């Protein structure tokens, strides 16, 4: 099954529900090594995406790229903090990559994921091992690239599985970007909230694609 504007919108709504359900968990993760707002920020942003989609309903933006762009600009203008510009850039770069395709197939999806990762890294300057969302995204994109021949659901499932593992890996890292970096060694033993939310969003997309 390929991904249309409608299915992408549905996936975003699904992601919003998942983020809302994990709002408290993400706040707690951020409370331990940051400033206790990541769950609130993400929830505010994704709820705003749902509102933006609702405002257009019963219409949906015409292309998957237009849906992604709507999500990106909503995140940029509603989330704030570090997560807002980083997620916003990821979504924006993905949307650019999607071009005017009416449907997203496996290879295009993989390209969009790669673009998202590059966007986050261009903006935030984090590399793998810095204990950020990048540690969820890098393995996710690699896994997606390996699964590029499969269908969208399989690609996203592979990405989500890898993102989960990547997020887990941040527990043992000393953060070098973002707020957690101020804690140095003291941040060890904690899951990075942005890596966790990245894994959650990818999982929600994968589930929605089934």
């Amino acid at each position, binding site marked *: 099954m390929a991904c249309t504007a409608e299915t992408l919108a549905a996936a975003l709504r699904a992601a919003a529900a998942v983020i809302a359900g994990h709002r408290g968990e993400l*706040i707690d993760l951020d409370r331990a*090594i940051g400033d206790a*707002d990541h769950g*609130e920020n993400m929830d505010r942003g994704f709820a705003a995406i749902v509102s933006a989609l609702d405002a257009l309903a019963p219409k949906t933006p015409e292309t998957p790229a237009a849906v992604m762009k709507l999500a990106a600009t909503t995140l940029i203008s509603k989330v704030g903090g570090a997560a*807002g*510009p980083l997620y916003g850039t990821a979504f924006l770069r993905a949307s650019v990559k999607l071009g005017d395709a009416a449907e997203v197939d496996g290879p295009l999806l993989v390209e969009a994921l790669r673009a998202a990762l590059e966007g986050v890294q261009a903006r935030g300057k984090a590399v793998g091992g810095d204990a950020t969302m990048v540690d969820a995204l890098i393995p996710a994109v690699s896994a997606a690239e390996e699964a590029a021949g499969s269908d969208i659901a399989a690609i996203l499932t592979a990405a989500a599985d890898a993102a989960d593992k990547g997020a887990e890996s941040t527990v043992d890292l000393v953060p*070098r970007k973002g707020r957690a970096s*101020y804690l*140095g060694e003291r941040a060890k033993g904690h899951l990075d909230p942005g890596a966790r939310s990245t894994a959650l969003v990818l999982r929600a997309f994968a589930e929605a694609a089934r």
Partner: protein
Amino acid sequence: MKKIINDPKTVVAESLRGLAVAHADVLRVEDDPAIVVRVDAPVAGKVAVISGGGSGHEPLHGGFVGQGMLAAAVPGAVFTSPTPDAVEAAVKATTGDAGALLIVKNYTGDVLNFETAAELAAAEGLDVRSVVIDDDVAVKDSTYTAGRRGVGGTVLLEKITGAAADRGDPLDAVEALARKVIGQVRSIGVALTAPTVPHAGEPSFDLADDEIEFGIGIHGEPGIARTPALSADELVARMVEALVTDLPFGEGDKVLLFTNSMGGTPLVELYLAHGIAERLLAERGIVVERRLVGPYITSLEMQGMSLTLLKLDDELTELWDAPVNTPALRWGV
């Protein structure tokens, strides 16, 4: 969690309503996106100094809007940097031909959101510069971290650049002045208790009754070290040591000493600590020429304090002394 609020989601908006009505002679508040603007903005021919960041640090930044200080403040959600469109709105509401200086505290979120806003404003033909303040000596250098945080020095930077703008300095000069201030201001903070972010509902960290956090920021993140509670003499000595060895500040240097409450520390303790800091600086031959004591950059109800030292020269002293008329700082008017 006990707070005087209705709903965590509306805290900032409702608080801004109170700020607006309490200080209608000095500022106004615009909604959606929320910004705090000088009542007489834009002021023709003068640089607009603009700052912002997460809420929860009051009076920073909204309490510093007014003549001789900020043209606008951009309040984000509690502890969350504001979004680019809010910053852009503040720029548009206050910036004329003289341009604007954005004062950005060095946090990933602030830097990224203000960067985007500056690009948006530049695209509209406005002359907007940004400076990033990073005065917190508790944080290691940026190979290992997001870089030093912007903390207490921000208040002094906003006052001094605001005064320069007020006397009509051009943007180049205000920007250069800002970089100079950033180059010679240093801060260090400690926490005795944790703040409780309204939407989180629980204290940001747990401290035993005999522990403190040394080298804390203003967002409830733990500090660089948890240590047993110290006497005021020992605590302030450690803080002063951390400050003066960093820049360094030395014998004969003239300084502004800013003793700041993190919110929950009462003035009786703050003045006590200030007295100790003055004594320790005097012992080192460092000359305190100006001082600011009070809760000016806070972390909600967190108990704790920070010390900020700014090396002064005649120009900075004059700009510090210049008239200011804001909710939180007011003199000469």
